[in-house]
């Protein structure tokens, strides 16, 4: 494909056709103060070596704590990804993959996605998983929309223990649809109280969304929540922001959830600028035709050999047009492949071992922090690899001091929860050694108390 930028006269012609006076006019819906009033200030061409220097200098301005001194989770967790994952997904057969419409030339990609779907369904305790979505939050938004479509109802109960960013994305997706998000304040409880959920639901409730481990890291009692929603007839959407927890905890489907979604970045992904992410999405078989997204199925070819192909495509936009289950026309094929490789390298016992290492590290760190005078665990609930800690003083300056010492100690929960201005969210995973954690504890004891 040739790339030839538009000439000035091409641009004039295009503007004349659409009736715009300038390119700037096309952006007038964006508030002026949010727009850059001049072209990007980019210096002229440089020799390649000078260019590398320039970028290195720019990169050095970033705070780079390194994975073992990063204790921030909050939806994006530090994990060791085996080198084999990047090596394998860098093969061109995988690296340039796009949704494989032609099974006759795409068996490898389709088989990899089928493996990913199989792992996803197994981990989430579900029967059918799709070929993946953009990320956990958009998968949750699709789940909410799907629940409303399936039930013919329009209210969705979403406690504020669901990740605030995920809630924002759901809000963005649903704001112009006939869907009402019912906010539920449960931050003080730390976990969902089944009776409070039940009280917020009615015959108009399409679904209740429960994240476990929740945004504070605490494990929800999904079985009791599943019972609590029964009377209303609402669907249960189980969300998982840290799927590594599924090495120890049962998936939402195993507790009776109708739809389960997860952010899959912990499998094979990285934390580079927050992405790329991976939306895992799974349902019960009875809901498969209502599910958004691509789906790879396994069948036999004319010679009786295993063969893979996209299936149930009539749910999708390229066939069903405006009546499609979703407008998603793609998947995160490369990240799904990375996840499948990572999961298969771990295996069932390896996944459990990593999960136990996370649980052990986080419990060690929580135990040590709780012994610092003036520091206490904000909620006394079971957690996986993340928990809340309340410090005696203002935490902004403390976090800044720790950062300048090279430690990203946690997330200030006051950003989203006004009553939790002295509380931080801390995560520890398999990458953190005892020494890493002891050093963090000593720093906090020195700076925060």
């Amino acid at each position, binding site marked *: 494909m040739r790339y030839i930028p538009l000439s000035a006269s091409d641009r004039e012609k295009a503007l004349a056709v659409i009736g715009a006076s300038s390119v700037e006019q096309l952006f007038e819906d964006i508030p002026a103060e949010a727009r850059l009033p001049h072209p990007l200030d980019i210096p002229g061409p440089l020799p390649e070596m000078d260019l590398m220097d320039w970028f290195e200098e720019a990169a050095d301005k970033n705070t780079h704590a390194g994975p073992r001194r990063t204790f921030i989770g909050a939806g994006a967790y530090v994990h060791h990804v085996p080198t084999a994952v990047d090596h394998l997904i860098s093969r061109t057969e995988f690296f340039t993959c796009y949704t494989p419409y032609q099974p006759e030339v795409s068996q490898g990609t389709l088989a990899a996605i089928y493996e990913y779907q199989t792992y996803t369904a197994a981990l989430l305790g579900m029967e059918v998983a799709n070929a993946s979505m953009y990320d956990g939050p958009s998968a949750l938004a699709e789940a909410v929309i799907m629940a409303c479509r399936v039930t013919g109802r329009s209210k969705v109960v979403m406690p504020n223990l669901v990740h605030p960013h995920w809630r924002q994305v759901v809000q963005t997706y649903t704001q112009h649809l006939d869907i009402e998000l019912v906010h539920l304040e449960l931050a003080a409880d730390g976990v969902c109280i089944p009776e409070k959920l039940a009280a917020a639901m009615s015959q108009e409730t399409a679904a209740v969304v429960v994240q476990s481990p929740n945004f504070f890291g605490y494990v929800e009692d999904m079985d009791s929540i599943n019972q609590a929603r029964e009377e209303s007839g609402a669907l249960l959407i189980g969300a998982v922001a840290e799927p590594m927890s599924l090495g120890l905890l049962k998936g939402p489907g195993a507790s009776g959830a109708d739809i389960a979604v997860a952010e899959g970045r912990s499998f094979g992904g990285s934390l580079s600028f927050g992405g790329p992410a991976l939306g895992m999405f799974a349902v019960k078989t009875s809901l498969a*035709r209502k599910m958004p997204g691509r789906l790879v199925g396994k069948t036999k070819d004319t010679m009786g050999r295993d063969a893979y192909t996209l299936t149930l495509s*009539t749910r999708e936009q390229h066939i069903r047009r405006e*009546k499609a289950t979703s407008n998603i026309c793609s998947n995160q094929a490369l990240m799904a492949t990375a996840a499948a490789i990572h999961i298969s390298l771990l295996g069932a016992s390896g996944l459990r071992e990593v999960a136990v290492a996370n649980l052990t590290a986080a419990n060690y760190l929580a135990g040590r922090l709780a012994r610092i005078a003036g520091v206490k665990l904000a909620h006394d609930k079971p957690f996986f690899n993340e928990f809340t800690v309340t410090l005696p003083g203002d935490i902004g300056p403390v976090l800044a001091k720790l950062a300048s010492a090279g430690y990203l100690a946690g997330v200030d929960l006051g950003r989203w929860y006004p009553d939790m201005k002295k509380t931080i969210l801390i995560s520890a995973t398999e990458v953190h050694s005892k020494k890493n954690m002891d050093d963090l504890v000593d720093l906090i004891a020195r700076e925060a108390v």
Partner: protein
Amino acid sequence: MEFPKDLKYSKEHEWVRVEDGDTAIIGITDFAQDELGDIVFVEAPKVGRDLKAGESFGVAESVKTVSDLYSPVAGQVIEVNPELEGSPELVNESPFDKGWIIKLKMEDPKELENLLSAQDYRNLAQKG
């Protein structure tokens, strides 16, 4: 291709058979099933749902496309063909009999007068 004379037809290729005065049995025509090809799934409404004339009540999905199903008359769904969930191919094999899709309690049987006769529908179908 069959166009049974005792039925009423809609322009959207549904047929209606009247039973007991105000019960309408609804399916898709032989012409429609032939156009769709092998039907793999029929999505039917819940019993008790009220339908307006012309309202979409479900979809027929074939190996090559999906098609909305429209109710030729207004009424309440009183029965859904239970066989179609496991054997959607009945719509291909027996469009006017075993492949029926829903039964409605009609709001106003006079609406039947707005529908096409077998001859009119045959003309419509054969015109393409």
